[in-house]
């Protein structure tokens, strides 16, 4: 069909290339061979073992699919469920798309370079699968599509490539959960995501990470937003991980395009998170916002944010707030780059502790010290995200409420 060979050649050259930032992962420690899992029909999907269901619910997956417009479920390397319930939305495994659909060549590896580092290279050379989710022009989806990337096999390196396309004037909401089976300890996840938000389209992408203590995680994602488009990118990670490094990037390439990144991270002991967001504002009327709330509970969190204003009449704000509760490190690195007259860019960053005054205020309303503390922490983590559907808002609220267990 088209030139996968050329991509493979390019990838091979980058196999030994460490990432620009973050600890280097020795990928030789992990297995890449495909793992067989049976495809599940609707009934089988609903009757997964209870402990697995619990993990999936934590990652935002609704197995009843009541308030979901479709599901993509990949276990290790195999797609075990994939369907769209909504007209105007396509959900296709990427391997199938690469074999059957010509248009996919216009999107595959077009935003992320295959030779970015050894992780992107691995995702091309040993691609397991991934999803293509596309809303057709003018389609407005009611319910979010859910996607789950699940790891079950000890020692596996899961290589995934996702492509998300919101065609002109469409509205698409996606919730994607990454999780591991209850027994899994060590594995790696490499996930490439390319997002295309076309003219006047709206895409919200909410990702909940629910990893295990010895997991290496290297997502690589780039988005591009055309004229009048809106890209909302939410990220939640409350659970331990060995090392997670990602720096999702968005290019606003059309007038009045908007991108907003919200992330909530709770850093557990022994875990290292290097997470950021980078938004290029290239056209007049572009707006960008990056909001991060981080809590260190003994873990190490590097919270990056980078806003690049290339033309006048753009507006961008970065907010990065961290609480250190039980030791650990929070390193906030907010960056603003304005290249012309007439940009409006600002940031606020703070790393601190819970104010005693707030605790005593709540205690004087009858809460115990522990209740007061968790109320303040929940408040700290609750960010108002404009434009998010109610189902997704409640998924985020639930994840934040569950943070009590991790934080306290």
């Amino acid at each position, binding site marked *: 069909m088209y030139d996968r060979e050329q991509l493979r050649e390019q990838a091979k050259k980058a196999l030994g290339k460490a990432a620009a930032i973050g600890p280097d992962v020795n990928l030789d420690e992990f297995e890449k061979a495909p793992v067989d899992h049976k495809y599940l029909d609707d009934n089988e999907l609903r009757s997964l073992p209870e402990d697995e269901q619990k993990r999936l619910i934590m990652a935002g997956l609704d197995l009843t699919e009541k308030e979901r417009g479709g599901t993509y479920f990949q276990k290790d390397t195999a797609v075990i469920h994939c369907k769209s319930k909504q007209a105007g939305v396509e959900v296709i495994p990427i391997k199938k798309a690469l074999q059957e659909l010509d248009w996919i060549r216009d999107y595959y590896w077009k935003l992320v370079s295959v030779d970015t580092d050894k992780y992107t290279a691995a995702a091309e050379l040993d691609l397991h699968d991934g999803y293509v989710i596309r809303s057709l022009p003018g389609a407005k989806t009611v319910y979010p599509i859910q996607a789950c990337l699940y790891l079950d096999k000890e020692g596996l390196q899961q290589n995934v490539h996702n492509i998300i396309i919101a065609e002109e004037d469409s509205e698409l909401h996606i919730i994607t959960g990454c999780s591991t089976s209850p027994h899994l300890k060590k594995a790696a996840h490499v996930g490439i995501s390319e997002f295309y938000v076309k003219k006047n389209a709206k895409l919200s992408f909410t990702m909940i990470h629910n990893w295990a203590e010895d997991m290496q995680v290297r997502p690589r994602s780039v988005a591009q937003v055309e004229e009048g488009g809106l890209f909302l990118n939410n990220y939640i990670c409350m659970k331990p991980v060995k090392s997670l490094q990602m720096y999702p990037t968005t290019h606003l390439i059309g007038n009045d395009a908007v991108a907003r990144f919200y992330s909530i991270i709770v850093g557990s002991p022994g875990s290292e998170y290097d997470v950021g967001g980078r938004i290029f504002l290239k056209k007049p009327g572009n707006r960008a916002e990056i909001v991060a709330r981080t809590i260190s509970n003994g873990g190490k969190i590097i919270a990056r944010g980078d806003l690049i204003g290339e033309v006048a009449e753009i507006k961008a704000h970065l907010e990065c707030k961290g609480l250190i509760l039980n030791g650990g490190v929070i390193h906030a690195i907010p960056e603003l780059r304005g290249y012309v007259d007439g940009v409006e860019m600002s940031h606020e960053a703070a790393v601190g502790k819970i104010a005693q005054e707030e605790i005593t*205020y709540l205690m004087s309303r009858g809460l115990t010290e522990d209740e007061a503390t968790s109320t303040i922490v929940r408040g700290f*983590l609750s960010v108002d995200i404009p434009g998010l559907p109610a189902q997704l808002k409640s998924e985020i609220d639930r994840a934040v409420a569950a943070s009590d267990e991790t934080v306290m």
Partner: protein
Amino acid sequence: MLLIEDLQVELAGKTILKHIDLEIKPGETHVLFGPNGSGKTSLLMTIMGYPQYKVTGGKIEFKGVDITHSPIDERARLGIGMSYQRPPTIHGLKTRQMVQICADTRGKQDVDVEQLARKVYFADFLERDVNAGFSGGEIKRSELLQLMAQDPDFMLFDEPESGVDLENIALVGNTIAALLQKECMPSKNKSMLQMKRERTKMGLIITHTGYILDYVTVDKGQVLYDGVLSCSSNPREILRCISEMGYEECVRCTIENN
């Protein structure tokens, strides 16, 4: 009943309240006068149980329970509540949630937050973070709304009139009167005397201006001067003396009292 006996309090190693004796009976409300820095807020904070106010002598009893060293939340659940002058902002906590917390901790889960809020014209603020960007008057209304939900038996008010414009002073005053069961509202089946006898709520109000006296019938005035309660008398009389002679006159009483 609140009973304070020979209370001595230190803040950061410095004695700030000396030999305080105070008794507030069920149904009674007292006002507390005193110049800036005399220890009025410290007395309220000590009664509420703020740990930085260290009790070095004497005791505080409430409803017959010795609460001298009880933590704040225990006192709150026992029925003590406070309206703050400058409460902290709590980001991410909606005013609605805060009001619900106040009701919950007193076992009044079924409170209608919306309806309570309308009484102090605060319904539009319920979705805002607690105290975030509130004006002086808005803070007061938020504090009163929290107390309405909490419905404590003994209420401490730290300068409820400060920062409140003339339009809102009546609202604040009347709300406090209602909280303290001091409303002048004739009832079909009860005489005023009967209603007075049935009053149980107690209050202690810090005031500089005395405006609050126009709305709340207060039973007693107290003057705190340099950490000592120097005077306990008719509140109107005290207010008049202070406005005519200033607090210097209190020095003489302080000396006589000791």
